[in-house]
């Protein structure tokens, strides 16, 4: 095979989509560059995780009222909740998380994450992409640089071929609506410089109506039968269609078209999204909440071969302003909301997810990561709430080669700052890529710079 002019472009800050297209050209056509790369990299770090479930706790949960309680801090910091022991010696959780404490032997607790902004918009972009570039805060001013792709989009790009072979919808699915701050969508939930092809495919779950796949809604006149008729028509034409040149454009067009059609017409394909196929026992174990069933859906998707699923706890933050559920953005009544809803739901669902994956033998190959965009102010405010806090927050990781029963990082006496081992969302993004076996060379091959340090201490040795 003659490789002419397929030079990879090197850029510094500015990412260049066209350069990606050129790199992608060979992989889509399955031509020699991709094969060569594969051959060159075979034997390199296959990565134990085949799938990732990112549980996105939008709004920013309090580190003190979840996994980094400070029982010895003054009352106005520690809050009203007591602490309970976990299966990790010497590590205690907030008392609202007994079930997660019970599976803590399967997880690594990260307690010293820090981010650069206390604005949901910017911290959201950092959390989703590992970089502040392009993030837009309340003032509407985008930070310099073009936005990086979401962590999931990078995985999607790397696994595009694998997903094609597995005949699944899209390598990157998001369960839940688009993330917003006020009415502004958060930058960085999509492919960014990798192009809209790596934007996530979105599903929504509503307890009242079940799974909704916005893209699969057919207009009223277009019955599935009529669509099938039309498709047959196009296929019969394409046999006689003048021989079209093989090229990247043709190959990708064909590929996405046939996938879209099979999603619209194939019952098997749609079965992936159908929670009625789950036993009531499973459904109950996860909890019959939107979040619970969304996580159940995530497990179903991973089981059918989707490499990256993100579950959004909610679409909106700032409940008082948005009339949304406000996610974890508890400026008001933090302790009441935690106790009545959020802690209970998260405890039940996340522990059920980890247990379920383990029982099905999927935990070894599935990285589950639960984290928000920042933490909350250690000092309780006068509305029994906690304000935004980028200085220190926690995350839970399990499966996909992550060590069980481990805690990383120690925060200071009030969980306001890391006392050691500060970690960033950029590190976390790099770590997720590492977990699925992506090397820094492969990331560089997409024209992307590394977002941070791989947290190698998370992985069992």
């Amino acid at each position: 095979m003659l490789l002419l002019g397929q030079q990879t472009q090197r850029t510094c800050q500015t990412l260049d989509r066209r350069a990606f297209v050129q790199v992608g050209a060979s992989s889509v056509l399955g031509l020699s560059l991709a094969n060569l790369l594969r051959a060159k990299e075979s034997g390199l770090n296959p990565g134990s995780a085949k799938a990732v479930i990112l549980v996105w706790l939008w709004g920013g949960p309090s580190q003190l009222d979840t996994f980094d309680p400070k029982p010895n801090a003054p009352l106005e910091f520690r809050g009203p909740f007591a602490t309970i022991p976990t299966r990790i010696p010497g590590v205690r959780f907030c008392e609202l998380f007994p079930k997660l404490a019970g599976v803590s032997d399967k997880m690594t607790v990260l307690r010293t994450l820090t981010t650069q902004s206390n604005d949901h918009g910017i911290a959201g972009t950092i959390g989703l992409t590992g970089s502040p570039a392009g993030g837009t805060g309340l003032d509407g001013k985008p930070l310099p640089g073009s936005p990086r792709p979401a962590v999931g989009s990078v995985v999607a790009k790397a696994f595009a071929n694998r997903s094609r072979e597995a005949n699944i919808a899209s390598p990157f699915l998001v369960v839940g609506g688009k993330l917003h701050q006020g009415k502004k969508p958060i930058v960085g939930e999509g492919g960014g410089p990798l192009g809209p092809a790596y934007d996530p495919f979105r599903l929504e779950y509503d307890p009242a109506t079940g799974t909704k796949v916005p893209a699969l809604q057919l207009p009223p006149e277009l019955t599935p039968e009529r669509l099938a008729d039309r498709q047959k028509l196009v296929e019969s034409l394409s046999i006689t269609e003048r021989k079209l040149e093989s090229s990247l454009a043709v190959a990708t067009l064909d590929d996405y078209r046939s996938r879209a059609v099979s999603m619209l017409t194939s019952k098997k394909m749609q079965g992936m999204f159908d929670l009625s196929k789950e036993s009531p026992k499973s459904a109950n174990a996860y909890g019959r909440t939107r979040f619970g069933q969304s996580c159940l859906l995530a497990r179903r998707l991973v089981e059918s071969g989707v490499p990256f699923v993100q579950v959004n706890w909610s679409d909106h933050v700032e409940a008082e302003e948005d009339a949304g559920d406000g996610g974890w953005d508890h400026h008001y009544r933090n302790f009441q909301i935690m106790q009545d809803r959020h802690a209970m739901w998260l405890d039940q669902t996340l522990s059920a997810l980890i247990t379920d994956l383990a029982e099905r033998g999927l935990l070894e190959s599935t990285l589950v990561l639960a984290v928000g965009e920042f933490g909350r102010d250690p000092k309780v405010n006068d509305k029994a709430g906690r304000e935004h806090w980028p200085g220190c927050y926690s995350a839970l990781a399990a499966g996909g080669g992550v060590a069980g029963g481990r805690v990383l990082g120690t925060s200071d006496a009030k969980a306001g700052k890391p006392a050691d081992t500060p970690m960033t969302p950029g590190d976390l993004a790099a770590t997720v890529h590492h977990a699925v076996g992506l090397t820094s060379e492969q990331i560089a091959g997409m024209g992307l710079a590394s977002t941070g340090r791989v947290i190698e201490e998370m992985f069992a040795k």
Partner: protein
Amino acid sequence: MPSRLLSPLFIVLLASSSRAAEPSASFTNDVSAVLSRAGCNMGACHGNLNGKGGLKLSLRGEDPAYDYLALTRGALARRIDPSSPDASLVLQKAVGRVPHEGGVRFPVESVEYRALRSWIANGGAFDSPPKLAKLVVTPTRQVLATPNDSFQLKAVAHFADGSTRDVTSLAAIETTTIGVVKILPSREVQKEQDGETTVLVRYLGHQVPVRVAFVPDGPAPDVSVLKSKSKIDELVAKQLQELRIPPSALADDAMFLRRASLDATGTLPAADVVRKFLADPSPDKREKLIDSLLARPEFAEYWAMKWSDLLRNEEKSLDRKGVQVYHRWIKTWLAEDRPLNEFAREILAARGSTYENPPTNFYRAVRDPQARAEAVAQVFLGVRVNCAKCHNHPFDRWTQDDYHRFAAFFPQVQYRVLSNTRKDDLDKHEFVGEQIVFTSRKGETTLPRTGETAVPKTLGDDRSPAGDDDRLIMLAEWVASPDNPFFAKAQANRIWFHLFGRGLVEPNDDFKVTNPASNPELMDHLAAEFKAGGFRLKPLVKTILMSRTYQLSSSSNAGNAGDASHFSHAIIQPLEAEQLLDAMSRVFDSNVQFNGYPSGIRAGAVPAMSQAGTGGRRGGASMGERFLRVFGKPERLLTCDCERSEEAGLLQAFQMINGEQVNAMLRKSDNRIGKLLDRGATDPEMLDELYLAALSRYPNENEKSKLFEYVKSKESRRAAWEDVAWGIVNAKEFLLRR
């Protein structure tokens, strides 16, 4: 311990150097070079902003004095040990005797080890030898046919004092493509497979690209299809012969008509135009068609859209009236075919009201000195200087000082908003209302390296405005001058890029030492032609469209299917968002609505997308606007053609299959199908109309029989024809430009 006099490196140096014998390897000329050669100072390793493992070196060795301190004084001076050179940490790490995250960088028996050791053993001193003036690499262009599978590279350094030295073994040599060639320790370039690539030879901050091609042996291909009076064809044919790539055949009339219409005007030819063109027997009908395309209003609208993308003509910063006057100004300029260098001059020198003097909108859309410098360089000069903001450009000649001195043209450009009635109170970057751009007497930027005030300086030829000169006028004159070293090439390459889907330099706005044109002679010719034509758009577009190269088929042959950059066949591309929506609108004869614009306006003619659907009190986006976003219409936040995405995706497939826009057009009662049925058109008439409008050709017999059979099998004739029309707009032939 071996004597340093026996050091093989030293012997090589003695043999190849015309200078006096050296007592030891030089830090600046040897050690710094081998640190680059071994990759120690690259961005991913110790050249990183934060260094790695406690050792930070300057990126790619741009600052030897810094590196000297890091190696000799850092880490409590443990890194080098002149009394026991082999025990030096830097050597122990590099050869893997001590764990090293970066792995083994070189063995003990290597040029790198010997150079470092020699320098350490001699006391590890800093030196200031004569500066490198020039790096001469031979060859700089090599095409080899099988069975030849390697050649030797040679690099000679010329120093400021007139001395020369063979630095072949010290230079870093890198490939830019994986899998085509590899570099042997002997500095030979060895073929891995047939193909073309660029090899970079780098020594002390100088880099020289070497174009390399290994081609299968065989007779020179037949390039007679490119025989014409056009210099473009001559130069393309010459290169294809050299690289043994056979060109494709000439495109047939239908393919040419559709392609040229899309590329020149962004629209499909009307059914009548197709009928006339296909039936016209005259030999010069392609030229007549090109002339008619260039005269159409859609030509100026289409190219104004491209310029609006680049100049960030968007409503949030410029408001609705602003984008409209700016767009009208650009469109009129292009319709009148006034010189593009004058266009640049008007924009760069503009001051005054954004409503009264439209080009002032440039400084409103791009608002800080650095962003303006980057935009001017990228848009008008085809140079990306962004990397040099923080450090010397690693792949080009720009230093950080160059960057900040170029940015120093702009800090005095100020704006005043006469009244701001923004719709989103929280969004401080939204402006609604007339604005005045002016230059103040105050405002300077500083050089981050020294903290001194940055004196403005042009890129490359280092000209500064005299004390009292207006900086913007001086800059504008410099950019617009026929002697500007960048402008003609950058613009000619961009025009070529828009017509072929790929620049001769690619990305089209990234001219740099390490990114040479795929056909340098052709690049020079196009620039000269553009300049000779008075920097006008239309003559160059015509010259290109008239070339046989442009008119080649997109069907590849066995010998050229892998060619992506030498124009041996046309490149197949998806229609752009606006092209696609306008094409559908034409096929269905059904208008699309855009917020704030009258019904019937084409997507390609809308000055800028409304802000609807982006939050605040801005209302919802229309169906057409949503469609354009899904298909990658840029938001105009970057001054780069690369912001437009053409990669296909699942959501785009859904838009075409069951999307709201397609469905609405299909169902509209008085669309083309409705009108044809109403006037009692027969099935063959219906099919001809749809095919001519959508695919610029007549249906063939096979298609006719299949489709007529389908229509007859259905109860509702209307529904059957809806299905057929759906099938046509979902055909690859419709969705692609070929």
